């Protein structure tokens, strides 16, 4: 298996707050890997360092052997990295279609973009119905679909998802997660950040557990599901 993403002893700070205390992890091509942890563990910060929205103070995030610190955040889409941010981050004053177009911002192949928009509409028929609607007026589930669709519009090889289940009803969470699996089957590597460990461990092949800026456990998803600490803290099983 070829390693796609690799974090090596990454440290990151917000002012004096030491948010990441030496994170090391790797994601192989074609995998779904999950990073689980409670509120404030450092999950979002990890993704922000990967996307070059933050610079690690030491250590490095490598994509296919290249140090991502050498790039600006705006160059990563062209490198095949896409993120669905925490809280979805749709452009609420723009229409659904305009949001999807923004996802393809760095591309110039008009025909391919139109084709991909149709592909996203097939994946999420609701988005097609609402394509002319301003996206701030969509429901939470629809916004999550839009954020995922927008990320897919850049044809990413690596998709980073930050708590896609947050604030969604269980039925919708199921739908979102099966779409994540579908996206993975079509060839996109996925790093899934979640507090909802139950769902995340069901679709992932491997997982890391993050606590206050440190990886405390890493194993196959199956082993993590059976791990006593994970069961107690993240799965609510006594």
């Amino acid at each position, binding site marked *: 298996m070829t390693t796609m993403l690799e974090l090596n002893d990454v440290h990151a700070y917000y002012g004096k707050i030491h948010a990441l205390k030496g994170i090391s992890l790797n994601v192989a091509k074609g995998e779904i890997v999950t990073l689980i942890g409670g509120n404030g563990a450092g999950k979002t910060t990890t993704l922000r360092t990967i*996307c070059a*929205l933050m610079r690690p103070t030491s250590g490095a995030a490598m994509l296919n052997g290249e140090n991502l610190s050498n790039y*600006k*955040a*705006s*160059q*990563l*889409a*062209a490198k095949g990295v*896409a*993120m669905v*941010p925490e809280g979805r*981050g749709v*452009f*609420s*004053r*723009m229409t659904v279609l*305009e949001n999807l*177009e*923004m*996802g393809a*911002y*760095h591309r110039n192949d008009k025909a391919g973009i139109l084709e991909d928009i149709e592909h996203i509409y097939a994946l999420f028929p609701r988005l097609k119905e609402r394509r002319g609607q301003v996206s701030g007026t969509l429901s939470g589930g629809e916004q999550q679909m839009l954020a995922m669709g*927008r990320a897919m519009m*850049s044809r990413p090889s690596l998709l980073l998802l930050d708590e896609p289940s947050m604030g969604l009803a269980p039925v919708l969470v199921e739908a979102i997660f099966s779409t994540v699996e579908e996206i993975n089957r079509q060839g996109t590597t996925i790093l899934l950040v979640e507090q909802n460990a139950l769902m995340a461990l069901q679709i992932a092949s491997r997982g890391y557990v993050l606590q206050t800026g440190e990886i405390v456990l890493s194993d196959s998803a199956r082993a993590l599901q059976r791990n006593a600490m994970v069961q107690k803290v993240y799965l609510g099983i006594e």
Partner: protein
Amino acid sequence: MTLSQRLRDIDWIDVWLWVFRVVIILGVVIGITRKLFFGAGTTYDSSDWIDFFISGLSQGGLYALIALGYTMVYGVLFMINFAHGEFFMSGAMASTYLIASTLAASGFINEQPILYLVLVTVAAVLTSMGVSLLTERIAYRPLRRAPRLVPLITAIGASFFWQYIFRGLFGSAVKAFPVPTILEGRVNVFGLDFLKVRLIVIIVSILALIGLYLFVQKTKTGKSIRAVAEDKDVAALMGIDVDRAIATTFAIGAMMAGIAAVLWGLVFKQVIFSMGFVPGIKAFTAAVLGGIGSIPGAALGGFFLGVIEAVGPPLILEGLGAPGAHQLKDVTAFLLLVLVLIFRPQGIIGERLAEKKA
């Protein structure tokens, strides 16, 4: 509840605001009534009123063009760019001193009036854009993460800087802006009698506003500006170069200011290094009136302010017996600003300032 308790529960600011509201409304009603039905002040016939209205519209078009710069920069940076009036001034000064007066002296102005206007406009727009891009790059970009008061004060400093630069370059005298002779006098359209330059200002400003609106709504660059206005981090993840989108925003605002500078020259026929201040403040007022951050709001606010300024004094202030009411344009404009800030801070169609995230 005792009376004293009830009195204590009254919010005296609310009471004051209500009194203020009633006084304003009474003033407006009494003024208009006395003017229209009891012939207070000078007597105007209908062609005078149409004249007031048209000059208001054309002045409003100028405000609208300048207001766009304030509103677009506020949209992406949540910052009031107080140097924007100087972007307007720089275009007017450079195009007058470097291009217009030379072409007027050689007689080119009346041989090729259209080409003359095009050349002057190109010079004004390029200067305004250059000054605005320099200001953004040197004075504002390094402060992008500073507390909001810092860029605001820097903007005031930049405003003085450009005024003194242009004074140093071209001197402090009033300089005539040469107007082609074919643009002098009046023209009759649809039975309405226009000063030619007023008509040109109205048409050009409306066309420029529509063009800008289409640009922001339909083009890829326009959409990237809207994306940056909503969320810079997410916009960057889409592959948008945020610095470039912000610089483009400044450049477009300055382009509108450069067009306004030439139109201003046509109407007022003179330029001076300090000419950016009052139009800048007025256009800022227009942007707040319409709802700062909103492009249609700035356009609407500009025309609204221009018309109120032109029609308000003869209609309302003369009716109230104010002496020399036609000199009270500025009072009317700023009174309107104060009223909007008190009673409708989000502007005519804007969102609330306070609720906007920083």
